[in-house]
């Protein structure tokens, strides 16, 4: 079975984002970027399925600027086989990303698509579910365990009350949650090998997808600042304070 893994280039999760003074967005100039952590988990899961012999080929896709190629290279170094970069400098919304991915699925015919549950920049948590709907496929969103069960895929999902397990007919879309696996670090030899793996460059127009945004950003602002309060000396002082403000 072939697996498609979309990977997104985002701000490094260890960097604190700053809002631009003009309110037009978040300042990403000279900011360290990385693969979205949930996408790393998606790549890792695909690689593990390949190691188990369930998966034969892993195709990585990124939709974004030329530098998104670096993100694909990281995934190739982790064990992906080849990449597709859909290059664009516009910020592509999840709906358009899902439409492009649907066209790639049509061409590549994978048995499974594994996406991250959310990208840590826009926090939309939409793309995988949208893709599943556009394809008419079932989905296992927020997965913490994935296993083949005969012809079906069994997915355990992290839900508000605990865990839920569903059985999906294939092809299907899975979106990853944090506990699915711990992604490996790419080793130096694998990083070197990944340089030789093929990456095809395309444009959204090649897929006939209109990526014009449906949403316009009116402004991006700093959230309300919360001031540090006071230090309390001991438990008695804490209890007294909490009583004085009616919190207990």
């Amino acid at each position, binding site marked *: 079975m072939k697996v498609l893994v979309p990977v997104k280039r985002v*701000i490094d*999760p260890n960097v604190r*984002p*700053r*809002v631009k003074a003009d309110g037009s967005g*978040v300042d990403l100039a000279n900011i360290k970027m990385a693969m979205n952590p949930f996408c790393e988990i998606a790549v890792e899961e695909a690689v593990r399925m390949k190691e188990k012999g369930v998966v034969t080929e892993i195709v990585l896709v990124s939709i974004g600027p030329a530098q998104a190629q670096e993100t694909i290279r990281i995934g190739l170094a982790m064990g992906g086989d080849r990449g597709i970069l859909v290059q664009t400098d516009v910020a592509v*919304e999840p*709906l358009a990303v899902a439409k492009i991915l649907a066209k790639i699925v049509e061409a590549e015919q994978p048995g499974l698509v594994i996406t991250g549950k959310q990208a*840590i*920049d826009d*926090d939309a*948590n*939409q793309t*995988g*579910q*949208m*893709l599943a*709907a*556009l394809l008419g496929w*079932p*989905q296992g*969103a927020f997965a*913490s365990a994935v296993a083949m069960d005969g012809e079906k895929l*069994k997915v355990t*999902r*992290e*839900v*508000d*009350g*605990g*865990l*839920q*397990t*569903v*059985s*999906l*007919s294939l092809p*299907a879309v899975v979106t990853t*949650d*944090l*506990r699915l696996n711990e992604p490996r670090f790419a080793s130096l030899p694998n990083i070197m090998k990944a340089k030789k793996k093929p990456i095809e460059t395309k444009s959204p127009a090649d897929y006939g997808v209109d990526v014009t945004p*449906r*949403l316009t*950003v*009116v*402004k*991006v*602002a700093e*959230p309300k600042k919360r001031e*540090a*309060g*006071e230090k*309390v000396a001991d*438990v008695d002082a*804490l*209890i007294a*304070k*909490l009583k004085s403000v009616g*919190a*207990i």
Partner: protein
Amino acid sequence: MAVLVLAEHNNAALNDATAKTVAAAQAFGGDIDVLVAGHNAKAAADAAAKLAGVRKVIHVEGEAFSHALAEAVEALVVPMMSGYDAFFAPATTTGKNVAPRIAAKLDVMQISEITKVVDTSTFERPIYAGNAIMTVKSADAKKVVTVRATAFQAAAGAGSASVESAAAPAGPFKATFVSEELQKSDRPELASAKRVVSGGRALASAEQFDQYILPLADKLGAGVGASRAAVDAGYAPNDFQVGQTGKVVAPELYIAIGISGAIQHLAGMKDSKIIVAINKDEEAPIFQIADYALVGDLFKIVPELTSKL
């Protein structure tokens, strides 16, 4: 104008997030209908009819709805949307699972986890783990929105909406429910608890998490939360995780114990009314947002606090 609100429920009872989503829909305006799709869910439908501001409740019965399978809910809602201008769902794991499918089918760009309705096409939502608040305007004819429950207050008063039944879409669906493991607890539900006690990596084991965090929570009648580090290490179950990629809470009182205060954690709790942090490191970032900071060893402080309350 009319809004369809997806109810979050467990068939027997409505989840709090439903009333708050109705409140967000009221801010949007127009007639509000609440969809209760479930299995033996009459009790939940009757509860929805009592929410203030609701025109009618649409009650749909079907086995596929007993666990809100996304594929089934999509098949149900998409045809219904010809009669509505907007679809609102709570940003719970159920809402997040279902709403994007409906948006994609309607060819609409979903607006995720709104914290404010500015007007009928403009919404505020947090991005970058709450480090920025984006105001977005949608050009789509219909709006598909998920609602961050903690940002809205349920409308006061009681309603008496009519309850109508509607037919379930024919299956089979390509996904089927297998099983679930839900946390059973008499404690208040984390997402809507008035008080929350959360433990972090410093608890160092599941046994100590239970031994130190739970008695304090019980003394306070609080819900229990955890940092991702504590969940990843197996000290607490996954549904305890508070943060950017877990649950968002905004209780009256939040007590963070042995939690450093990474931005991803703060994203899930910094709108709490009063924050108490207990940490042995006086430089811990959590202290930058805490109202009351107690520096010291949690293994000494927490038992003392529990016994003195």
